[in-house]
């Protein structure tokens, strides 16, 4: 496996790079396979994974699932003997899909609501990096109506329009002290929206080996008139006026995925996905305040992400008519360059392990469960902008469950 990964890496030397805020939890079956499956017409989650494969789905269906995600990150200042941990907060990535088409026809309609980007990190108000960040709660919810057409018995294409509703709450401590010694605090909160698309091509060869090419466009999410609240000693109030607002822009990157599906036997299928995440558009995180003062200038924090990539392999085994078992492994290259690692996304290259199980008590109902685990490598960094100097280490745990009704 390692060798395979390594050769995959070497064959694409320009894809040096994974994840950032990307959340790869969009369908229980695919999650159980480490997120691979763009080349499989597995279920209604193909609306996300490959709109082109939707027209190859045999049934109409509707499903909903959730993956409570626990992001456990630790930090140790360089030279320190104290390890600090994020608070246990559970983020709720979810997904819901519906796919419908007249039985004999070559087209299908689909809709998906899912959360491809997000972050929930709460380091608390006392940790040693609090002047860089105390907490981030970022949610991007994509709504995607989709049309998929089976051009021939071997080729399907599909595309969907994406509307993103974004929600962000970013907080940090300010290094100005009240008479009792406590620090000031800044809270930036806002909602925004953005648009994009998701299109895919699905090819089923005569040998039943399947191929996928999928491109999900970038979604530049604009936040307008977010609220900027500064808790500071009253003598600094004129520098940090009350009722201030801000505009910001969060560019969510495009992703290009190549997938292969290989039927090993009648009941067992192997899926391989290689994704190229075009994070390079995330150049900076800029806040443009409505009211500027000598102490409160607009901020432009360089992020300078490079493109990320991931390689995922999963296996789906239909153990019986009613029971399916899944497993997957993957590896992702971080888009965050040295010097730009921040506590809101303490990113590094990561290993992915997953397992899943599906159970269909009747021909109409299906229950799928998954467990997704990521081991983000330990990374010692000194941030160029903030001087935050230390080692981050993160583990991600996400169990998930979904219910499907088919007809």
């Amino acid at each position, binding site marked *: 496996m390692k060798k395979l990964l390594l050769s995959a890496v070497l064959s694409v030397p320009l894809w040096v790079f994974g994840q950032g805020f990307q959340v790869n939890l969009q369908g229980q079956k695919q999650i159980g396979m480490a997120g691979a499956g763009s080349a499989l017409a597995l279920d209604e989650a193909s609306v996300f994974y490959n709109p082109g494969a939707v027209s190859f789905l045999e049934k109409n269906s509707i499903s909903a699932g959730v993956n409570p995600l626990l992001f456990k990150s630790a930090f140790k*200042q360089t030279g320190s003997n*104290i390890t600090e941990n994020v608070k246990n907060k559970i983020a709720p990535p979810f997904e819901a899909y519906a796919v419908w088409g007249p039985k004999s026809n070559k087209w299908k309609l689909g809709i998906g609501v899912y959360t491809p980007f997000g972050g929930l990190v709460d380091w608390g108000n006392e940790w*040693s990096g609090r002047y*860089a960040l105390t907490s981030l709660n970022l949610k991007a919810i994509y709504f995607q109506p989709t049309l998929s057409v089976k051009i021939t018995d071997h080729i399907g294409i599909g595309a969907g329009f994406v509307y993103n509703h974004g929600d962000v709450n970013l907080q940090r401590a300010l290094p100005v002290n009240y008479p009792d010694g406590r620090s000031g605090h800044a809270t930036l909160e806002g909602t925004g929206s953005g648009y994009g698309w998701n299109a895919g091509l699905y090819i089923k060869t005569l040998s039943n080996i399947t191929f996928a090419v999928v491109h999900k466009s970038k979604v530049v999410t604009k936040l307008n008139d977010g609220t900027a609240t500064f808790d500071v000693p009253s003598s600094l109030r004129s520098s940090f006026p009350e009722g201030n607002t801000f505009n910001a822009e969060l560019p969510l990157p495009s992703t290009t995925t190549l997938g292969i599906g290989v039927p090993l036997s009648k009941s067992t299928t192997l899926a391989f996905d290689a994704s190229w995440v075009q994070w390079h558009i995330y150049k900076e995180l800029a806040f443009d305040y409505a009211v500027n003062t000598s102490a409160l200038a607009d901020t432009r924090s360089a992020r300078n992400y490079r493109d990320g990539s991931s390689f995922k392999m999963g296996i789906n085994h239909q153990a019986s008519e*009613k029971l399916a078992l899944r497993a997957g492994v993957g590896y992702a290259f971080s888009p965050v360059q040295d010097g730009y690692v921040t506590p809101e996304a303490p990113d590094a290259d990561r290993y992915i392990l997953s397992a899943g199980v599906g159970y269909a008590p009747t021909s109409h109902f299906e229950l799928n469960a998954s467990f997704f685990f990521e081991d983000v490598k330990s990374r010692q960094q000194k941030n160029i902008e903030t001087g935050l100097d230390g080692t981050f280490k993160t583990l991600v745990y996400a*169990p998930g469950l979904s219910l499907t009704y088919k007809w």
Partner: protein
Amino acid sequence: MVGDINMKKIIFNSLVAATILFAASCKPEIETPAARTAGTANFSKYIAIGNSLTSGYADGGLYLEGQKVAYPNLLAAQMATVGGGSFTSPFFTDAQANGSGYISLSALVNGTPTLTPVLGNGWRDTPTNTRLFKYSGEIQNLGIPGMRLDLAFDPTFTFSAANMFFERLLTDAQVGKVNYAAYIQGRNHTFFSLWLGNNDALGYALNGGVTTDATTVLTEKTTFSFLYTNMLNILTAGGQKGVVATIPDVTAVPYFNTVTPAALLAAAKAINPAAAAIYIQTGTGAVRVATSEDLIRLPFQTAGLLGTGSIPYGLHPLNPIANNWVLDKDEVIKVKDYVNSYNSTIKSLANNKGLAVADTYTYFNTVKAGISVQGININAAFITGGAFSLDGIHLTPRGNAAIANVFVDAINAKYGSTIPTIDITKYRGVKYPDSK
């Protein structure tokens, strides 16, 4: 049906397994490179030799809050993780917590500060207020505000009575009979820090380059070298290891960088648009227009002199800003030259003795330019810079934590020890007034 039960069992078991795995989801671990060690040093009894910076003097006074966060105290707390013992300091009691008194920031209007004195309650001779309550008992923070290298060897012993912070620590029998070099001996230390010599240049500079008494002398370079050698010989008499610190550039502190001729002229013009230039009297007695290379002392801001008198003070060549308010360009060059000489002496003597060097000279210059440490921007700006307290010379708790880490790094590098660094974010900068 049987198969169904098996499937349910498998699903059930997998879910249980997943739940257990989730619940047991161990915290991520960050490995520490090596076990904590004192390396080749022995921190079991650490003593700190120095002046006001070592004592925790801040905001123009010595008071309990400052004493507690003096860099040697922060350092000693970290040393405790690598075999360091207890560290005692001559703290004021809670009832005397305001010590010699200090200044606080009571208002900040459009960036203009109002500084208000907080009266001391550490006096034993109220209302004269020249003598502090005595402190008896063994101490390891031996920093004395105002201590100079030359006066540490005061052959007349008069400084022990003249300096109230030194007098406070002495028995009645010792006052007038002992100098600092003698006082610090016989303490069975295993490790020391020495940050002394600042006042040998700063005393002169703070008086505008005018020598009026023994505390405002610019110590001769050869004298400095001779006495520093003696001091190191005393401290290493038993083969002890230690860390010495260089002397910061006196122009790196807000005391000399806040009140600029340009700012004064702007203030004068606001009142009288006819004001054309700021005039100063230099060390040679000459009167000339001030340039940006002439440094005016911070207290001039609140002295209320500018523009006063029938010939407006500082705005006319016949009534220039007096010599003692200004460290003029030539005096700046002179002080810098002396400090550079002191620092080469300190470094070369330390190297000869195999001692660690905390290069605070370089660090203060870095702070002057502005740095970001753990998400905090610190610089040498008065009040907003965060590193310097309200007297413009001494450090805030945050500044002490930053400097203590310079010592930690120097000690660890020299002796192969692994003293953990101090979390600077736990320490405050200047306290801003709050009406709530």
